């Protein structure tokens, strides 16, 4: 596949850019943060995103979605990154939809996918238990009970867990604490008996949750995929999320860079524009190259997901590289703005905060470097 956008994809990019710049720019993030909004995003916006086809971007057409695939989802996520839009796009449209498409039964798909696409159902992935991403470390247990299972354990960093209608819980039906075998995915209602959800507001003003499962009874029909065979599904879901997060970081790195280059052309010190200082020019030019590399790696990862084969290497490349470059881009942005870059009133700090949260989500540069090395045989 050529590493360029098709005409259709270029149209999606343009419409996503226009939509988010108008409906959910950075000022909207600031407004929601200052209002200490309980939901943390605008439900109206999510409805509008569903109407645009974004909520159902991965959902097949016969299930009410638009079925445009991961490159398209990545373009939406990139626009979200540029505007620092708050929405459940990642948790529901990417992670949730991928899980159900990958592992759902016919009934589960029919029941859930059309509601995702319509913007009526919010999902959250409850996988992590450690503060650093280690998806195989699962201590939450699922014991056979009745016609199903009883779940007990604690989950952290459940993105949008505070508002999700359903949680996709990863629990251990077999094996030791860090085995990849013996994991099973479950669909659990957030208001089921025994589920406690504590909202945690994060540095980037998004919300995650700590979820406690205290003997939660789950019906056999709510197992997602094979009992004990959850790992490949989880990897697929995480890889989808990672590639889309790479796209989000591409968007936010590019936008904070654009604003910084603009600033270098406006701000004067020593009687000249600061952009005329070579010490800044070379760093900006270097950063330009790095962002171009992220663009290539991200596009390739999203294409690999669309091709359906093993995308792991390209996904780790994209997520790892995008994380490192987002860190560099946002640090340079603040630095090159000088004192004003440190102020809350100025937007540039928001980019740094989102970058850090996106980096920590599903593996940072170190995690994905290690994964890449292993995939390459060393």
């Amino acid at each position: 596949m050529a590493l360029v956008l098709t005409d259709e994809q270029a149209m999606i990019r343009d419409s996503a850019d226009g939509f988010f710049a108008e409906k959910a720019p950075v000022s909207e993030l600031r407004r929601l943060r200052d209002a200490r909004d309980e939901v943390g995003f605008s439900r109206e916006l999510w409805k509008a995103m569903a109407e645009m086809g974004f909520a159902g971007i991965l959902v097949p057409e016969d299930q009410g979605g638009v079925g445009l695939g991961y490159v398209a989802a990545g373009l939406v996520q990139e626009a979200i990154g540029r505007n620092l839009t708050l929405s459940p796009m990642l948790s529901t449209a990417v992670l949730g939809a991928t899980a159900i498409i990958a592992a759902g039964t016919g009934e589960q798909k029919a029941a859930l996918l059309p509601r995702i696409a319509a913007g009526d159902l919010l999902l959250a992935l409850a996988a992590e238990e450690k503060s650093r991403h280690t998806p195989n470390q699962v201590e939450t247990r699922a014991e056979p009970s009745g016609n199903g299972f009883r779940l007990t354990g604690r989950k952290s960093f459940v993105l949008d867990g505070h508002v999700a209608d359903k949680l996709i819980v990863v629990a251990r039906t077999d094996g030791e604490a860090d085995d990849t075998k013996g994991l099973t995915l479950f669909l659990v209602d957030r208001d089921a008996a025994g589920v406690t959800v504590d909202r945690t507001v994060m540095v980037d003003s998004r919300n995650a949750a700590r979820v406690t499962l205290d003997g939660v009874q789950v019906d056999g029909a709510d197992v997602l995929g094979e009992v004990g065979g959850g790992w490949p599904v989880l990897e697929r879901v995480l890889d989808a999320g990672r590639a889309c997060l790479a796209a989000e970081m591409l968007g936010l790195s590019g936008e904070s860079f654009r604003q910084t280059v603009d600033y270098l052309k406006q701000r004067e010190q020593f009687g000249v524009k600061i952009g005329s200082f070579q010490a800044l020019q070379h760093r900006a030019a270097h950063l330009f190259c790095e962002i171009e590399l992220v663009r290539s790696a991200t596009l390739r990862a999203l294409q690999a997901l669309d091709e359906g084969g093993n995308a792991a290497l390209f996904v780790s490349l994209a997520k790892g590289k995008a994380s490192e470059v987002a860190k560099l881009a946002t640090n340079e942005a603040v630095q090159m703005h000088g004192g004003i870059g440190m102020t809350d009133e100025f937007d540039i700090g928001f980019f740094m905060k989102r970058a850090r949260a996106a980096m920590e989500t599903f593996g940072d540069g170190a995690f994905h470097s290690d994964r890449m090395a292993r995939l390459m045989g060393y």
Partner: protein
Amino acid sequence: MAESLDAFRSEVRAYLEANCPPEMRQPFQSEDDAPWGGRNFKWSAPQKAWLDAMAAKGWTVPTWPTEYGGGGLSKDEAKVLAEEMRRIKARPPLQSFGIWMLGPALLKYGSHEQKLEYLPPIARGEIRWCQGYSEPGAGSDLASLKTRADDHGDHWVINGSKVWTSYADQADWIFCLVRTDFSATKHNGISFVLFDMASPGVSTKPIKLISGYSPFCETFFDNVKVPKSQLVGELNRGWDIAKYLLTHEREMIGAMDTGGSGPGLGQLAGKLIGADADGRMNDPILRGDIVRADMDGLAFMLTMERVKDEAKAGQGVGALSSMLKYYGTELNKRRQELFMSVRGSDGLMWEGEESRNGAQPRNWLRSRANSIEGGTSEVQLNIIAKRVLELPGA
């Protein structure tokens, strides 16, 4: 379209299978294997057979028009040819400054007669070219060059000297920047001329590099007569041609080795240094450095691919040759440092069979020049800052 490409692929595959000698299906072992061509080049039998087979099809320069010795291939077809060559690990049949630099410049700026005269011998590997740009006083500030060409009616007389002229002592012809107007501003008095290195008054003096090789020279011109028909493009407008040629040179240097030595460093390290029960290389900090370089290397290769694909689709940004040059050469230098670390004291061996005459340290040292030749890294960053980011001048 896709169908005819498939047909083309089978045709290419069959032709390569039938015509690529087995000796030509392995990577270059050393500088000596490089098929530069030219009047004095000593071809081995397989090298010559491979060259002739490819030149017969025009595939030494696949995208050049057939009337000038090329294959007349579309970019898509050329990509197929490259893929098929890679599939059987075929070496390039010919490599030269004529192919990488002068050819593209002549195709754009040369007259029809000049193209007919100079391009086919490049495609057939008969004439080897060198590049007369840099001078003792004109490096990064190339446009300040002083080698002069004086008008003597039907010919020019050239006086001055060049430096760092790669392979000047082995080249047959030179493409050379000369000053033809001393009153104009520095960019507006330069012309682009071609002449035979066997002309009376041309002499060269090899310079030894830190790698121990001496691939470049000082080059002197003492009243060298050059017919006026050997001026390319317009008089005093040579700077445009010089810059255009540089974009090709930069893409070539940027692409050098990053592909060939691609992922492989980590595997080599794993083998030489050993691994734990999980297969993780033993030296964890070195492993981290290697994988970061592999990461950047793979992302860079994808970027080269994307830039090509975007150019085909008529999209993309300018000044990318500077990005590719800067990033590719810095990356290659980093990889060479890592190769040295991975090999440890074995990598220090400078002489003898075992080390293939010190191939590793010599490659490492040679690669230091990548971020200097063709315009330094700092100059590339200046170009990106100016042309792409449009930052103000200091």
